[in-house]
């Protein structure tokens, strides 16, 4: 899923300061599962904003902000009508016209989708971090996929070195393995100790009797598949 963390309140208040009325739109997807932007967090955000003196005129929930609707479906509608169309459990329905901006509690994809169909500014309540999973044991979220466009998990024991090795190495561990841990995660600017992905890959392949996979020289990553501004046509493998 998409891992997010709410921005600090001071930053959100600063962003919202030019606008007299604000509508909040949460998301029922990853941010709801990870409790950073679901229905409950959206209501809590409204309370905090009101306490800070922000005029929250409405709040609602999009099922998934990463999919809202086609642009043609909202052509000719006002912003208030568009928000009504994509948000359920809407509170402050009648006040919606007063919204001068929308605060989205979705990830960066959701914010952009909402911004795409609204004329008024849509502002992000989250910092979007990465694609990964929640580890309850240890209480952290772990990055697992970088969307590099050329999946190599078949020969790395289902553990991605592109996302989970600090250097995205293709051909085995570097010299920075400290008791099985990545030395980069021990550095003073890192939050958590993280195991060396290549040692994990080695152990997994060993267990599967597939260490020979490590002996093959893997070619340089083709970054034409990972360069930004990617757009993929349906049915085309590129």
């Amino acid at each position, binding site marked *: 899923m998409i891992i997010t963390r709410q921005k600090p309140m001071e930053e959100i208040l600063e962003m919202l300061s030019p606008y007299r009325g604000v509508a909040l739109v949460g998301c029922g997807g990853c941010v709801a599962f990870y409790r950073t932007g679901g229905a409950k967090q959206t209501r809590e955000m409204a309370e905090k904003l009101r306490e800070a003196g922000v005029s929250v005129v409405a709040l609602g929930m999009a099922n998934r902000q990463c999919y809202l609707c086609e642009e043609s479906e909202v052509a000719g509608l006002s912003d208030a009508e568009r928000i009504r169309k994509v948000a359920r459990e809407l509170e402050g329905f009648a006040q919606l016209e007063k919204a001068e901006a929308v605060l989205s509690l979705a990830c960066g994809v959701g914010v952009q989708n909402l911004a795409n169909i609204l004329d008024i500014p849509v502002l992000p309540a989250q910092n979007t971090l990465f694609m990964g999973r929640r580890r309850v044991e240890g209480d952290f979220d772990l990055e697992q996929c970088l969307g590099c466009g050329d999946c190599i998990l078949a020969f790395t024991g289902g553990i991605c070195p592109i996302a989970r090795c600090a250097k995205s190495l*293709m051909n085995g561990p570097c010299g920075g393995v400290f008791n099985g841990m990545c030395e980069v995660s021990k550095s003073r*600017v890192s939050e958590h100790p993280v195991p060396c992905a290549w040692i994990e890959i080695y152990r997994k392949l060993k267990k599967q009797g597939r260490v020979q996979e490590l002996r093959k020289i893997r070619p340089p990553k083709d970054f034409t598949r990972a360069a930004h501004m990617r757009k993929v046509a349906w049915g085309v493998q590129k």
Partner: protein
Amino acid sequence: MKEVYSNFMRSLLSGKFTISGEVDPPRDANRAAVEEQVRHLKEHVVAANVTDNPIGDVIMNTLAPCVIMQELGLEAIYQATCRDRNRIALQSDIIGAAALGIKNVLALTGDHPKMGNHPQAKPVFDLDSVLLTRVLRRLREGENMAGEKLEHPPRIHIGVGLSPGVEPLEPEIIKLEKKVEAGAEFAQTQCIYDEKVLERLSEETAHLDIPILPGIAPLRSVGMAKFMLANVPGISIPEELMKKLENSSNLTETAIDIAAELIAAVKDYGFPGVHLMPVGMDAHVGEMIARSGVR
């Protein structure tokens, strides 16, 4: 018959015990700091490595000290890391270095920027050390990564690094095998203080046809030893060395003695040479070698 371009490779092929040194580029544009290290090393080593911004701290680049050294008559081993340069810059730099007379290149992955004094920098790592090794060989064979022919290919010998004290060791050995397959002609290792590590390295690499130069650096104090243990992966320091440092009445003398014993051990285990990293004790390198009795 294999073509030989450098004195360093000539020495290795001759079967003579070969000693390489290391020059640390200064933080600023102080040419004299390079010259002084060269002056101390020149008579004692065949060639010396020039590091490429170790741990990602900003210091003088690799190429300038390499050129200065060679002007002064000491052959350079140019360390190239994948940290700051993509495949375009790496190839371009090596071609330029070869035009300036560099004949040995050590291909390394490089430390992550988060370890150094510019942790905010964008890490590159477009290639890794295995792939860089293969690219260097391809350049030498007269072709760049785009397949374009080079009429004047860089005439360089290719070295690689090795961290023999890491646990588990098998993936590190597998990576060395890949580097040999990719074209590595010599290897230099991370610092070794423990003869057990030398012994294991010698056993675990016996099947590989590549000269390995174990890395030796003087231990200057108990503080330095403790720092290395806590911060450098794969370092082990035997209790007996710690005691020697603790009981020392002259740390310089003790550091020289310890280094000399390790250099002697390297030869005893049958390695073809040693890579000496003076870590500031450049003036004593001659004494370390003399006391080791390897010559």
